[in-house]
C-alpha cells in the first residue's frame, strides 16, 4: 500500500517537474560569428589633377619628413597633388594594403620606400601593369618593374660607413686582434639596408670581424634606443657597433647609460644618417663616425622624375643616387651649425 502511494507520489513529482516553465529557452543569445555584407566603396577622394602618392616605410620615422616637405615644395612648382600615405609604424603588410588601395584608386604615380622587397615586387608590377607609374626612393625593389629609384647608393653608403669604422679602429690600434661587431638594421627583408651591410662588410674585410648579432629596429625610432641599451646591458663585451640607420640616436640619449659606459670603455660606433639629433648624439660621444643621406634631394628628384614620366618624358636612367654626407668628431660642430633642430614635439 505504502509502496503504491510512494510510486504515485513520484509520478506526480515528475509531472510537476516536467511542467516547469522553460520559456526562457525560447530565445537564446548566440555567440556564433558572422560577417557583414559590405557596401560600395567610398569614392570621396579627389581625382582631379595629377595625384602622386608617396609611400614611406612609416609615418613615425622623421627621416622621411624631409623628403615629404621637399616633395611638397616641388609639387607647388609642378602643380601636382602630393599624398603621403603609410602605416603609422613600419609594417610591410600595412604598406602593402596602402599600396593596394592606391592601385584601386588609380593614382597617377606612386613613389615608395619599400619595406619588404620580395613581397612588394609583385604589387609594384601589378600597379605598373595597370598603367600607374611607380618609382622607389630610399629603399629599392630592383627586381620589380618600377620606373626608377631615387636615393642613396646604399652599397656605397655601407662601404663609406665601413671605411669610417676601419679608420677609427686603426686609430685606436684595435685592428691587430679579432673584433666582435653588433649590427642594428631596420628589417632584414629591406633591400637597401642589406646593401649597406654588404658594403660595410666589404669595406672592413681587412679586419678580423665577427658579427655577433643583427638586431632589428623595425624602423621605429621610439624603441630603437631602448633595444640598443638593453642589448648592451646583456652583452657588454662586443667591440664594434654599426647602425644601418640613425634610429637609436633620434631620442635624447639620457637613458642610454649602459651604452655610454660601453662607449667609454672603448667601443667604436658608426651610424648611417646625419640628422640633427643624430649628429648631436655623436657630438656627445655616442657615435664615432656618421655617413648621412640627403632625404630632401630624394623628395625633390623623385617628384621631378615622376612628373616627367607621367607627362610622357623618357628618363635617361633608372637609378638616381643622392649625395652622401660624412661626419666625424672633427666636423660634428660644423654639421650642427648647418642643421636645424627637429621640432616635432
Amino acid at each position, binding site marked *: 500500500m505504502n509502496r503504491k502511494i510512494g*510510486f504515485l507520489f513520484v509520478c506526480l513529482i*515528475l509531472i510537476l517537474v516536467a511542467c516547469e516553465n522553460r520559456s526562457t529557452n*525560447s530565445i537564446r543569445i548566440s555567440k556564433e560569428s558572422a560577417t557583414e555584407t*559590405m*557596401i560600395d566603396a567610398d569614392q*570621396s577622394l579627389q581625382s582631379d589633377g595629377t595625384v602622386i602618392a608617396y609611400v614611406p616605410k612609416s609615418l613615425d620615422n622623421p627621416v622621411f619628413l624631409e623628403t615629404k616637405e621637399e616633395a611638397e615644395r616641388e609639387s607647388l612648382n609642378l602643380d601636382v597633388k602630393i599624398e603621403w600615405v603609410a602605416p603609422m609604424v613600419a609594417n610591410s603588410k600595412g604598406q602593402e594594403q596602402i599600396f593596394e588601395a592606391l592601385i584601386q584608386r588609380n593614382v597617377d604615380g606612386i613613389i615608395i620606400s619599400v619595406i619588404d622587397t620580395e613581397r612588394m615586387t609583385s604589387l609594384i608590377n601589378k600597379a605598373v601593369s595597370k598603367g600607374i607609374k611607380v618609382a622607389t626612393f630610399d629603399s629599392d625593389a630592383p627586381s620589380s618593374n618600377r620606373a626608377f629609384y631615387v636615393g642613396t647608393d646604399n652599397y656605397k653608403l655601407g662601404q663609406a660607413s665601413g671605411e669610417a669604422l676601419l679608420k677609427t679602429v686603426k686609430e685606436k690600434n684595435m685592428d691587430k686582434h679579432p673584433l666582435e661587431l653588433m649590427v642594428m638594421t631596420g628589417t632584414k627583408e629591406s633591400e637597401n639596408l642589406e646593401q649597406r651591410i654588404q658594403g660595410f662588410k666589404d669595406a672592413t674585410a681587412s679586419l678580423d670581424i665577427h658579427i655577433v648579432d643583427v638586431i632589428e629596429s623595425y624602423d621605429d625610432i621610439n624603441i630603437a634606443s631602448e633595444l640598443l641599451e638593453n642589448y648592451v646591458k646583456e652583452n657588454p663585451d662586443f667591440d664594434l657597433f654599426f647602425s644601418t640607420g640613425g634610429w637609436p640616436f633620434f631620442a635624447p640619449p639620457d637613458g642610454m647609460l649602459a651604452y655610454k659606459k660601453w662607449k667609454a670603455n672603448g667601443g667604436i660606433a658608426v651610424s648611417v644618417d646625419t640628422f640633427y639629433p643624430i649628429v648631436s648624439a655623436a657630438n656627445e660621444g655616442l657615435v664615432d663616425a656618421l655617413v648621412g643621406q640627403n632625404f630632401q634631394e630624394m623628395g625633390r628628384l623623385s617628384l621631378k622624375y615622376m612628373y616627367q614620366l607621367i607627362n610622357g618624358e623618357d628618363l635617361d636612367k633608372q637609378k638616381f643616387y643622392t649625395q652622401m654626407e660624412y661626419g666625424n668628431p672633427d666636423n660634428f660642430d660644423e654639421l650642427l651649425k648647418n642643421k636645424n633642430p627637429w621640432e616635432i614635439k
Partner: protein
Amino acid sequence: MRKRFKWIDWYSIRTKMIVCFLVISIIPLFILGYLSYQYYINDLQSSVNSYTSEVIERVDKNIETYILDVDNILNNFDDYYTIQYLRLDEAGDIEGIRKYTVRLWETIQSIKKMKSDLVDIRIISQTGQTISSQGIYWTNIDNSFYSNILEAKEDRHFVVKFPYRDEFNRNVFTIGKKITSSRLSAPAIICVDIDVSFLNRIGNDIKLGERGYVYFTDGAGETNYFPVDTNNPESLKVLIKDDKILNKAKGSIAEEINGDNYLVNFKQSEVTGWNIVGVTYANEIKADFSKISKLTLLIGAGCLLVVVLISVYLTNILTNPLRDLRKVMTQFADDNLNIRAQVKTKDEIGQLAENFNYMQNRIKSLVQKTMDDQVKIRKMEKKALQELIKPHFIYNTLDSIIGLLEQNKTEEALDLIEALGMFFRTSLSHGKDVIRLRTELEHVQNYFEIQKFRFFNKFDSSMEVDDDILNYETVKLILQPIVENAIYHGVRFIDHKGIITVKGYEQNGLMILEVIDNGAGMTAEKVKHINDVLAGKEKLKDENDYFGIRNVNERIKLTYGDEYGVKFASELNKGTRVTLTLPIIEN
C-alpha cells in the same frame, strides 16, 4: 476489439468506475491543458516581441553610447594643435606644420590604441587635404556627407555616415562634425571611422532565436549593415521592405516573404537616424510551439497515466470488498452455506456484507427448516397413508367384495375392486407430494364409491367443482380424510339420508375446497376447539386426537404456508362445512 480485451469485464462496476474516474479526470485535464497551452503560446509570442524590442533598444543604446563617446573624442580636436595645423595648412607653411603634423599623428595613434574599434581619425581642411593615421591625402568634400557636416547649424552637431568601404579598403562607418574657429578662414571637418566589426559585435552577440538577426538601414530604407551567416553563407537573410519601418519611430510587424513568416521589430535611432531592424523567424517560434505541444501532450499522457493508475487504485479499493462479496456469494450459491463475507469496512459495502451474512444465516435456517418440513411432510404423508390403509377399512371393503361375490353380484364386485384399486393407486401418486386437483377428486370419488357400497348408500355424494380449477395443484390426500370424517362423524348415524358434497372454486385468488355434509354437526365449542387446534392456538394432550384433519391441515401449511389450511364450520344436528384454503398454482 472486444476479443482482444476480453480479459476486461466491460459490465463490471470496477470497469464502470474506472471509466467514470477517467472521464471525470480527463475532461478537466484536457481543458486545463488546452488553456495552459493557449496561455503559454500567447505568453511566448508576447515574450518574443518584448524580447526583440528590448534587444533593439539595447542595440540602439549601445550604438548611441558608443557614438556619444566618439563625439567626446571629436570635441577634443578643436584644440590649439589642431587649429594651428589647419591654419598652417591654409598658409601653406610646409616647414612650420611639421610639428603639428607629427603631433596629430601621434594623438590619432594613441586614441586608436585606446579604442580598438576606432579605425581612423581624419581631419579634413577646407581644401580637402586630409590628415589621418594613414598619412596625408586629398578628400573630395563635395558630397552629401561632408556637405551635411559643413551645413550643420550647430557646431556640436555630428553626422553619421552609414557603413562603407573606405579608400583604404577598410569597412567602416563614420561620424563627422565641423571644426570651426575664428582663426580659420573656413570650417574644417573631423571624421572618426569606426570598424563595422563594432556593429558585427552588436549584431552577432545578440541573436533573435536560432537564426534571427539585426540589421540597419538608413532613413530611406537602404541597407547599410546586413549580417551574413558565415556558417551557412547560402542561407540568405531577408531584407524586410515595409514602409512602416521607415515611417514609424518604432513598432513591430509580421511579414511573409517567399512563403516564410517573420516577426519584425524596428526602431529609428535618434542619434544615428538609422532604422534598427530585428528579424525573428516565425517558424522558430512555431518550433517552440511544437515543443510546447509535445511537452503538453507528454505531460497530458503522464497525467493520464497517473489518472489511470489512481483510478485503478481507487476503484480497487472501492470494489475489492464487492468482489470479495461476490466471490463469497458465488461460493454460497455453490452450496457452501457456511461461508461468510469477511468485509471489515463500515461503509455501505460493509453494511451490505453484514446484511448478506444475516441473509445467509436466514437462508441457512430456512433451508434447514424446509428440510425439516420436508421430513415432517414425509412422515405425515406416511401417517396419512397408514391412516388410509387402516386394516379395518381394507377388511371391511374386502368383506363387502366377498359378500357381493357370494351373491353372484360379480359386476358390482368388479366395480368395487376397481374403485379400491384406483383408490390406492391415486394414493401413491407415483410418490409425488403435490398432484392436480383433478386427480385428488378422482381419489375422493373412488373413496365415495367404496364407502357408499359399504354403508349401503346411507348417503349420497356430489362434486361441484369448477372446471377452471381442475388443473390447479394441491397437496395430495387432503380431501379423503375430510370426507372420511364427514362419513364417520357426520352422516353415519343420522336417521335421514346423508348428503356429502365436495365443492371447489376460485375466490379472491385462492383455491377453496369445501366438504359439506348434512350430518350430526358439532357444537360451537367443539368447532372452536378444533379450529384453535388447527390454528395452533391450542395444544392437544393426545396426539391421536383429530389426527386426520390435523395431518391435512399441517401438510397444507408446511407446503404452502401458515396462511393456508383447514377450517371448520358446523351446526349441531345440521351438518358440517370443512373449508380447505390453498394457493392457486397452475400445474
